[in-house]
């Protein structure tokens, strides 16, 4: 399974530790990882995913502005011709929010999976293995 993954931290967020750990774990698990690093714009995500024909786009956000930063994200991907599963993870709201509510918000915005900040790299890998096996190019889209 050499699925291709685009990874980055969106917006002005500079929390790099989580994606560094994720990158290493995904690479070790055999994925082809394109890590865009921190403070990545929607356009940069779209461009990289399009260029590398990514199977999955993994967005990380820790600093609490994810909602603002992700407005229109899926439109940007579509415009660039990207058809990949999209995950988002980290601390997705400012403050002590109920995660279920947060998950619903990001689901409604179009993300296929939404992860909280207790997510281990192994959980991300398990999900990717499921979803990328499923999809293996444009078949059905997971709706979990």
């Amino acid at each position: 399974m050499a699925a291709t993954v685009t990874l980055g931290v969106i917006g002005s967020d500079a929390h790099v530790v989580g994606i560094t750990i994720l990158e290493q774990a995904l690479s070790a698990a055999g994925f082809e990882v394109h890590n865009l690093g921190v403070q990545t714009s929607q356009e940069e995500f779209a461009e990289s995913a399009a260029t590398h024909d990514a199977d999955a786009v993994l967005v990380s956000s820790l600093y609490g502005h994810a909602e603002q930063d992700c407005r229109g994200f899926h439109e940007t991907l579509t415009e660039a011709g990207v058809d990949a599963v999209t995950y988002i993870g980290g601390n997705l709201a400012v403050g002590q929010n109920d995660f279920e509510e947060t998950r619903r918000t990001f689901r409604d915005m179009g993300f296929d999976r939404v992860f909280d900040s207790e997510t281990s790299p192994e959980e991300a890998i398990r999900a990717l293995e499921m979803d990328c096996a499923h999809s293996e190019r444009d078949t059905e889209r997971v709706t979990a």
Partner: protein
Amino acid sequence: MLRDERIPAEQLRRIDGDVRGNWPTGQAVDFEEAVEFHESLPASKRFADVLENADRPLLQPRAGVARLEEQISLLEHLQNEGQADLLPTTIDSYTRDNQYEKAQTGLEEARETGKAALNGFPAVNHGVERCRELVDALDAPIEVRHGTPDARLLAAITFAGGFQSFEGGPISYNIPYCKENSLADTIEHWQFVDRLAGAYTERGITINREPFGPLTGTLVPPSIAIAVMLVEGKLAATQGVRSLTLGYGQVGNLVQDVAALRALKKLGNEYLNDDVTVTTVFHEWMGGFPPDEARANGVIGLGGTTAAIAQPDKVITKSPQEFQGVPTKEANAAGLRTTRQMLDMVREQAINLEGVDEEQELIERTAMELVDTVERHGDGDVALGVVDAFASGALDVPFAPSDAAMGAVLPARDDDGRVRIFEFAELDVSDDVKEIHGNFLDERARTEGRKRSFKMVADDVDAISDGRLIGRPNAGGNSRSGDDPGAPNGGESRAD
């Protein structure tokens, strides 16, 4: 050209004019009138005086919300219920990016919906008058805490707004906080901030400056953190700053933390001119926290113990909700009181730890080697040296997101839990130092029966949030994949 030299008066005025044009609120800044405002403040709000004359470590939380009224009641709570000695105002991330329009949108959204649309207080958008309302409303001195690479307008407005302490610096607010800002630019921008602080200082209004010691907050070797503090302190002093609080973030090993704080104080006093008053600030653990308030209280407790033994001038506290997100004001005050209780129970005890001197010696030697490298890289000019040393990796910070640093150095804990350097990359330290670190890490590798590898680093990054200090393999414990009792919510893959 970039040089570690004082900005001439005329240039200061020119930049000041430019900067103040960046957002409408900049126009309200008037230096002379601001000096008068500061003079009108009572002694209890003179940040440098309060800090420098304290007879015990002072406690300060972090806190910032979008709206003024909310910020006032948040700080009142921390002052009254948390018994904070010093208060903070943490600035939102858009302001840190100089995206004042976005901050404005967030502020207006917050005002309309009451929701937390910003992760801090947009001081630039609020402007001078509203900053002063904040300063007037509280009893304790307030510091601006942010993470802004180009903080010139923020400084102009908040200094005029009555704040007398300002966190950050050209390295410590660039390397951990952003990707694309060049170090040369940030140094110039902070020369302006420091010069402005110097200008107030010359008029009798001491502005305390606090380089951000924890850097990326993630297993930063003390020698690296201290070298950065010394260099930033030097740059600030050149511009006329006379009250400098050098910072250090807890690594969790008692002996190493005590040694590091002593080294920081000692080298700070030695390296900086006598006309600079050097104080130290200790940050409670800045890395990933356990996803459980009870366990987080254990981490905070260890911060309090360390502070009680090392006696820094100031302690920045954490809250038990650190893992989850911006804490409620109650949790923030609770973190202060847990720390206070520990501090006050332990600080009168004479606690001398064996091995501090040796560790301190190693830290000092390594830090001085790094400072020397900076000076060599700049042919004696620290400003130039910083840019060059970072570009070449001779000076480096682990997990640095910034393109200005190599970010190739990697830390790992030794068998005793002290942070050592696992991958030096281009870090310019002597072979002797490398060997010492290598031996310590070999010892751990032997104990664990595994090779040194990135996995070890990753395990160490997670260790405290998993309930221990050293990321040993198969230690069981509370690993993220396990089902932690304090877990507020399972990850997606579990929930589905």
